[in-house]
């Protein structure tokens, strides 16, 4: 029952997110808005209900599975990918590496510059 209640709540937030996005015409996907709304709800409530936690853990523990059908879609694009395999492969690979390296370094540097002094006390208590 916990799982069912949790999943229902997640779907309700997604539904409200999708409807709001369409009503307001904002360029954000419905599930992302639903996530923000659920986050705000948890924040106001001050804790996570067990049902939501059960459902969320269940879904997120096999997140990769959910990308499999989209990945199989590759077969519908074989000819396109074969025609332009060089730009696709290089752009995708290099861009992913550059993005990951740059983001990790920026995050590490800015954390040291901006947070270390104020966070030190906080971390001592952890």
């Amino acid at each position: 029952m916990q799982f069912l209640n949790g999943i229902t709540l997640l779907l309700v937030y997604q539904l409200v997110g999708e409807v709001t996005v369409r009503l307001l015409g904002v360029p954000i996907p419905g599930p992302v808005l639903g996530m923000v709304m659920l986050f705000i709800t948890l924040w106001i409530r001050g804790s996570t209900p067990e049902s939501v936690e059960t459902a969320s853990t269940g879904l997120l523990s096999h997140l990769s599975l959910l990308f499999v059908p989209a990945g199989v879609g590759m077969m519908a694009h074989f000819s396109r990918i074969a025609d332009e395999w060089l730009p696709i492969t290089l752009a995708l690979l290099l861009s992913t590496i550059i993005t990951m390296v740059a983001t990790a370094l920026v995050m590490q540097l800015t954390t040291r510059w901006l947070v270390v002094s104020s966070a030190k006390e906080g971390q001592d208590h952890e």
Partner: protein
Amino acid sequence: MNDPGLKDIWVYLSASPLLGLTITLVAYGLAYRLYLRTNSNPLANPVVTSVAMLIGLLLLTDTSYNDYFEGGQFVHFLLGPATVALAVPLYQQFSRLRQLWMPVTISLLCGVVIAAGSSIWLARIFGGSFEIQMSLAPKSATAPVAMGISEKIGGLPSLTAVLVVITGITGAVLGTKLFEWIRVKDDTAKGIAMGVAAHGIGTARAFQVSNQMGAFSGLAMALSAFATAVLVPWLVDWMQALF
């Protein structure tokens, strides 16, 4: 009369979503077992092996992707509620997040612009067509977001979905090694980079490293979905005007 024959059974199965759904779960189950066998070696990422198995099977049986997706869509659909579910780990990391909001904001904005800008630019210098450039631009955002953006800027949404998955796999496979090389040790920095560059597939990998890395990756994936949706159409216009 009471011998239905293999062909009739096949006709029934190929018209029903049951087969597509079942083979997706079976393939993933096998791929996941293989992944555990290899001590969670990122090269044996379960998405890669299960996608390869399924494509092989569909080609062998001459089944079209559309027929397969009749069943596959039930799994695909769960991406929506799973995105909403990310609010939970995010909330659990709230105190850490509040401490780090400045670095997180700065690195997210840098990451989103670099991800889209570099893929458009690289695709262009290596001779990719406009459609390919635009299909690649939102590749680091999570699938449903990326498909929407791709459509808006002149790419092919269904091709973008594929590129999104390949990007995610690339990030998940290379991520931990790359972070080792550039000597980034904080789980927060690794998580943000993984989520920005490799969305949900990277996040799945990040959760295997640590809960904190997973939560920050999930956060980065959610916020960069926002940022990509807002910034990328503008970035594309700007790059078109400039080059």
